[in-house]
């Protein structure tokens, strides 16, 4: 079928419907095909709009039930591109199934490479840290700042991600590979690492009242504790070393929860031995 058919593009309602569905894309995350059902459910308004024969609809559903996994929020850009390709396929059938799948799979990795540092590495930890620091004094501003801040970022990402993806189609592949997004990722990484570094120092509390040396001076006992020695060297050194130890363990695929339990063991044993104090 090479003749061109008139296919109605997505209406505003379809786009809103797709957006709403995309916010639930991880609902049925499973270990076999991960986000697959969520992708199919998100694409349903587009499939219904572009295809009217039952076998075409079934084929479209089937190709969107294949393995998919990326950073959820910017994934909307992939949905936009995919919708644009589905529309072209419905129009003249020149795009084959494999092309749609390949673009989807091809964008997944690079997008996660951009999305993970920006959203999970920078935006969320920074807003959460800011919110938590306000919440510690019992201020409702803390949770509100975090909740609204992160959700505005999320909604803008999803809404404009889809719109740009849909209007640009496969041209967006240039964008993902290009300098602009790479710049943004690098900026997010610099900011994220900078803040992580400052948090290691600011938001850990390790007290080591273990007495190393004790002597009498003018009738008073003077204690030199482990803490005093370490603070002279570099305050926060222990937290820094612990961070590197965790990074090393995580790189060796040790589950985070085991590291956390290990930390508990260190805390309890250290407190029992008198090395750590409250």
């Amino acid at each position, binding site marked *: 079928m090479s003749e061109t058919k008139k296919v109605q593009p997505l209406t505003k309602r379809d786009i809103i419907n797709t957006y709403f569905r995309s916010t639930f894309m991880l609902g049925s995350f499973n270990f076999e095909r991960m986000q*697959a059902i969520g992708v199919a459910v998100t694409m349903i308004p587009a499939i219904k709009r572009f295809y009217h024969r039952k076998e075409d609809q079934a084929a479209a559903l089937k190709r969107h039930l294949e393995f998919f996994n990326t950073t959820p929020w910017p994934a909307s850009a992939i949905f936009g591109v995919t919708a644009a390709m589905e529309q072209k396929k419905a129009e003249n059938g020149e795009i084959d199934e494999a092309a749609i799948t390949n673009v989807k799979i091809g964008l997944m990795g690079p997008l996660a*490479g951009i999305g993970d540092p920006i959203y999970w590495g920078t935006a969320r930890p920074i807003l959460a840290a800011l919110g938590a620091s306000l919440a510690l004094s019992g201020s409702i501003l803390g949770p509100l700042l975090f909740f609204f801040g992160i959700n505005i970022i999320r909604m803008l990402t999803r809404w404009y991600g889809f719109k740009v993806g849909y209007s640009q189609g496969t041209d967006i592949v240039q964008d993902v590979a290009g300098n602009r997004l790479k710049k943004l990722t690098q900026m997010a990484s610099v900011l994220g690492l900078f803040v992580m570094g400052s948090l290691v120092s600011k938001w850990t509390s390790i007290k080591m009242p273990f007495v190393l040396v004790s002597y009498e001076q003018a009738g008073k006992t003077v204690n030199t504790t482990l803490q005093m020695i370490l603070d002279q060297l570099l305050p926060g050194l222990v937290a820094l070393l612990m961070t590197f130890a965790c990074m090393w363990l995580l790189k060796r695929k040790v589950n985070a929860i085991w590291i956390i339990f290990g930390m508990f063991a260190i805390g309890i044993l250290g407190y029992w031995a008198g090395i750590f104090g409250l």
Partner: protein
Amino acid sequence: MNAMQFILVILVALVCGMASVLDERQFHRPLVACTLIGLVLGDLHTGIILGGQLELIALGWMNVGAAMAPDSALASTISAIIVIVGHQSIGEGIAIAIPLAAAGQVLTIFVRTITVFFQHQADHFAANANFRGVEWCHIGGLLLQGLRVAIPTGAVAAIAGTSLVSQWLDAIPPVITHGLQVSGGFIVVVGYAMVINMMKARALMPFFFIGFTLATFMSGINLVGLGILGACAAVVYVQLNPDFHDAIKAPTAATNVGSDDDDVLG
């Protein structure tokens, strides 16, 4: 806790459980989940403070790729109930939150395995172009994730007001509870390490050390100040980076298109 509060607690837990798999609206983060439980139980203040403390610990917990983070949803709901209804200290709440996060992780792994069954059902419906069927498979998986948190939370809420909980907690020797509080001071580094590893940017590590050193020696600077400094460093770094200036770049330098391995600068 009256019947109305009990129902609301379960509803909040259901929403948090669903949010923990969606990772969308962030209801599963301690800062939001503990605040909501506090609101429902009539002690907003305690909920916010506990949420803030737990958020600090869970700061870097995230689902990246197929790897799963400790579960902050179950940890937040149950520890908030124990602290508010069971009249325990915030420190106690944090100490029990961590084993709960581990339990929640095991439960979500369980549900994500069961959902493979829904995946195959969806294939079946797709073959007949049955849109409704595919949608229900999706909703089914989501509901299971909600129940995964709602059921244990409901069970704890049912007994939290009784002396049973405080008896159990009192039975823990003080060396354990104090030790747990000690580790609460540094357990957050696990999350920081997760974030740093995820960035995959060894070449940018100097910025980590700059942040560390500034925060250590500039007393009085707060997070907003550090954030501004970090943002400035980010802008200046990108402006000066030759990678982003085509004119300066050697013509033979191949662009590192779309590679997601270690870093693009090294």
